[in-house]
Structures are given as C-alpha cells and as structure tokens.
C-alpha cells in the first residue's frame, strides 16, 4: 500500500461522475492515433522458430498474457508450460540452454525481476547462457498497483553482468527485437508490450528498423533533445508534435537497448547544438536510462543542461492507466508541459 492511499484508507468514496475503469492486465496499451498490430512478439517468435530448431518457449502460467500463446498454438511441441513457478521457469530455461536450446521464457516483469532474480543471476547470467527473458507489464503499464508494476526492473537487471536489456517502444521494436535476440549469443531481458501494440516509430521515420545496441534519432529538432526508451519514445514523439505548435523544436533519440548503451550516439547527439537534454523513461528515477545517460554525459564532460522524466521513487497508486500516467508525468500532456517548463 502506498502512503497516500493508506492515509485515505478509511475515507468513504462516491462513484465518480466520469467512469474510467482500471486497466485490466490483459488490456493493450492505448496510444491514440496509431495503428496497432496484434501480438507482435508471438508472431515474430513463430517466424524465428520456423528457421531455428533451437528455439523453445516457456512460461510460468502467463503465456496468454505475454502473447506466447501464439507460439504455443503454432508449435505446441516446442512450448513448455512450467506452472506458476518462476524460479523453476528460469532454472529450466538455464538447463535447456545448457543442452543447446534457445529458450524464450516469459512472465511478468515483476516476477522475473523480484522473485526469480537469483536464478537469473546465477543460473543464467553468470553462465552467460542464451536465455531470452521476455516480460510483460514493464514500468507503469498496469493499474493493478505495485504487485504488478515493475517500476524498478531495469535498475535491477542493469546491475547484472552479461545481461542485455531491451525496452521496446512499439510493435516495430517488439517484432524486430526477436530475431536480434536470437542472433545475440548471451542472455537478454526484454520488456514486452503485448496485445494490440501500436505501430509508432515507422510513422515518424518510415525507414526505422530495430537494431540491438543502437540508438536512433527518430525526429530532428533544434531546441530540445529527448533521449527516451520504451513507451516514453511514443510519448516524446507526441509531445514533440504538440510543442511544435508552440514553436518548440524537439528532437527524439530512441534508445531501445538500455544495456549496452549506445554511448557514442548519445554523446554525439548531446554535444550537438547546445540543446536541453531530457531523458524520458517508463521506470523509477533510480537506476534506469536517465542515470545511465547522466553518468556518460558527466564522465565525458558534456555539460548539457540535463533533466529527467521518470517515475518517482515510490510505490505507485492503483487506478486507471491514463489517470496514473497523468498523475506520474508519463502522459503526452505532462511530458510536453514539463519540457516547456524547463526552457
């Protein structure tokens, strides 16, 4: 329970005039104005598995909620239902990787990062085994409260040697990261967007393709450089369009690979043009993209004006996702307002 909600625990409430339901866990992330793609992860994995016999899929009772059911339906003999046992899920994935298979293990980000951490650390990462951990509900993408909101997953896994971390923005990233994960030899933790996933990046930059380890400029702009990952790139692009109406020119550098970080591109862009540098991430302010970028800027002596958009160091409230995004600063309006306030 969060402190704010605890303080109001005994206050009676009335039904609101405007009903906004709590986002169900299975709900897709709403992104207004974008086309969507159904289950891009599941379909991309099926495609990859058609030409790679090593690929197997495992889930801890969450295949439906990680789009792995698409793979399970298409290739049932290569799908392993491990039951509601995340420590087992990661151990078995490690064991199968030892036997030269290429396991994709799925669960929610909170359960991988919190419950199964030691097993990911010792059975997978320390051994540098090619286990691909793909987790739904990253950051603030559910209204269920802290039990399901993985607001610190990247901080946890950034501390783990050998791990590659991916925070995809949209359906293009999700589909593109699958073959990249297959080609990458070591362990990977990827945040997942599932269900009907918006296609964002190619609308802003038609030639965009996901490349592991590479940050890419999606939008040019002379006043502000937003360095963002995950769904915050979507928010930054929409905020940039909004700010353009105020004659504020915002560039967006999308960093889908959190580790290893594309330091070269980040430094080059941060040095160019004396722009305000703003990082934006769907993650706690501690230990994620923002702090990683800050370290690189400081180490390289790049004296940019620097601000961070991130979730606060708190257990977050339950509620409807749009309400929560507004409350915690992840909405397009809040992102735009924050950037404007810093100029």
């Amino acid at each position, binding site marked *: 329970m969060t402190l704010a909600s605890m303080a109001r625990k005994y206050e009676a409430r009335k039904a609101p005039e405007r009903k906004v339901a709590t986002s169900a866990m299975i709900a897709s992330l709403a992104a207004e104005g974008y086309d969507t793609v159904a289950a891009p992860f599941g379909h991309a994995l099926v495609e990859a598995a058609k030409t790679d016999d090593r690929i197997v899929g495992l889930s801890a009772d969450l295949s439906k909620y990680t789009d792995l059911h698409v793979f399970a339906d298409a290739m049932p003999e290569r799908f392993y239902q491990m*039951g509601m046992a995340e420590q*087992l899920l990661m151990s078995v994935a490690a*064991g*199968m990787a030892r*036997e030269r298979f290429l396991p994709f293990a799925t669960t929610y980000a909170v359960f991988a990062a919190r419950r199964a951490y*030691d097993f990911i650390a010792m059975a997978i990462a320390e*051994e540098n085994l090619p286990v691909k951990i793909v987790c739904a509900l990253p950051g603030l993408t559910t209204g269920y409260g802290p039990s399901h909101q993985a607001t610190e997953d990247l901080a946890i896994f950034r501390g783990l040697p050998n791990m590659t971390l991916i925070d995809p923005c949209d359906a293009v990233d999700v589909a593109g990261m699958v073959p990249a994960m297959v080609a990458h030899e070591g362990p990977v933790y990827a945040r997942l967007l599932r269900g009907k996933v918006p296609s964002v990046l190619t609308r802003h930059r038609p030639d965009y393709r996901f490349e592991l380890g590479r940050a890419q400029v999606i939008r040019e702009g002379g006043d502000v450089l937003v360095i963002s990952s995950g769904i915050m790139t979507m928010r930054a692009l929409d905020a940039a369009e909004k700010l353009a109406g105020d004659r504020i020119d915002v560039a967006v550098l999308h960093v889908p690979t959190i580790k290893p970080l594309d330091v070269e591109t980040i430094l080059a862009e941060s040095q160019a043009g004396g722009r305000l540098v703003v990082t934006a991430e769907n993650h706690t302010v501690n230990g994620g993209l923002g702090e990683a970028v800050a370290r690189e800027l400081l180490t390289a002596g790049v004296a940019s004006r620097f601000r961070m958009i991130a979730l606060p160091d708190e257990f977050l409230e339950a509620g409807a996702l749009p309400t929560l995004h507004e409350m915690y600063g992840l909405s397009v309006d809040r992102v735009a307002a924050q950037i404007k306030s810093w100029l």
Partner: protein
Amino acid sequence: MFRKFHPCFDVLALSVANPEGEEIMTPPDRSGRRSNVSLEERALNIRRKALRMGEIQGQGYIGQALGIADVLAATYFHALEYRPDDPEWEGRDRFLLSIGHYAIALYAALMEAGVLPEEEIETYGMDDSRMPMSGMASYTPGMEITGGSLGHGLGIAVGMAMGLRRKGNPALVYNLMSDGELGEGSTWEAVMSAVQWKLDNLICIVDFNNQQADGPTRDALAVAAEPPKWEAFGWHAQEVDGNDMDAVVAALDAARALAEPKPRVIICNTTMCKGVDFLERREITHFVRVEPDEWSKALAVLEEGKPQ
C-alpha cells in the same frame, strides 16, 4: 580471465538435433566402468585427495567431503557414463553439483576419475586455480553448473533432463544436493515439475548429514521423513546409509533400472567426517575446524582404516 572456454559458445550455431551423429542415440555401454580398483579404494582415494586439498588451504568443507566420498565413488566409478578425456562429450551422463561448497569433494572425485589432472591439486583454492572453493561451471572441467546459491541444482537438472529428452539423448541427469536445500522453495518447484514431465532420466541424490550452517537440519525445516514426501509428489524414493557402499550401489542400480516413468531420488544418510574417527567425534559443525597439525594425522587415520 582464468576461465575455461564456455561449452555453449562454440556450438550455438550447430543444430541441436543429433550433434554427434548416431552415437548418442544408442544406450551407453557401462561395462567400461569395470576396474580392478574397488569402489572402497576409490572412496579412500577421494578422501585422501580431499584431505590433501584441505591441508593446502588450511581449511575446507572436509566434513562434507569425507561424508559424501562413498556416494561419489559409487556414482563416478559405478553409475556414471563419461569420458575422462572429453568432459563435454554429448553422450555423458550429467552430474550437477548443486551444493557448490562440496566442490572439494567433487574435485577429488574428478581427479580420481582422470577428468582433472592430479598435478593441479596444489592449486586448490589458490589464485588462478581451476578449482575455486565453491564450484563453478566456467572454471572447472567436469563441473556442469555453478552451484552455491542453494536450491538451484534440481531446477536446472529438470531443464537439462527435458533438453536431453528433446534431443533424443538417453543420457541421465544426476543432481547432488544437500539436506539444507530441502528448505528452499525452488527445490519443491522442481520436484513437482519433474513429475509433471515424467522425467525418468533424472536421479536426485540428497546428502542427508543433518547439518546446515546454523545447526541440525532436522531442527530447521526438514523435520518430516523424506521418502514419503517425495513419494507423495510422485517420485520413486529410496533411503540408504550413504556410507554403506553396497547399499549406495544397489540404490543407484535400482534408480537406473526403474521402468516407471517417474523421477528418482536417493536419500543418502551420511556421517560428517566419515573415516576419520577423531574428527567424527568432534563437535560437528557446517565448517569443521581442523588444526594445522591435524591434516596429516587425519590422513594417517585414513590409511590405518583402508580396505585390504
């Protein structure tokens, strides 16, 4: 920097199907294990080597090593199929040391088996050694996994057994764990899963010496008798005196020969410091203290009691 080449890196590009031709598809011929060295002598040699390593470091989990020596002798010189000169041979039975701190015992067994060169015994626990104090897969030939974070081995064993089955490889997976690991929830996740997947290629050996870090295991979580628990989950369970060579061999034979499609467990009740009477009588703790002059004394006691 000191690590051996990781077995996974060079083979990732290969197809998993039949990586070594048809060889692994035929059941292994275990007659090659026959030797004119008795299992009792093997156990003695494992104890000797473990004591020597303890002497070199001035410390070590010698109580556990002396206790498990008979089980390791029976496993490595009666049950397991492997090639000493090719520790990563695809057809090998996999032996997982979940209890990383038992590495001193496994190094002794691997040296006795010819997997590790005995000339390196003096490097045990030293900088740049291939034999660190806690066992790690990336350091040591014959060490299949990195143990030490307890409760990991059986789950990995389940995954390897599933992987072997997927490849059509008839090799067995052995997981050696301790009674203390019976307190880890992850162990029981793996116990249930092994039954779910009918893993008849999985043999779990539990070293029950009733000693964990803070005291007797029976005073902590493993209060109830083990075989009924495992049987209730659907395992084939045996309980033996782990220091009775004939009993251990018979249990391993029974586990291997079982026709039922279920995983097998052998609870081995062992005595800490077995074979060195003055250490057996000492107040037993997780980390038995041995004075500098006692290592050679312990070796001498072993020699007196050696099999004729």
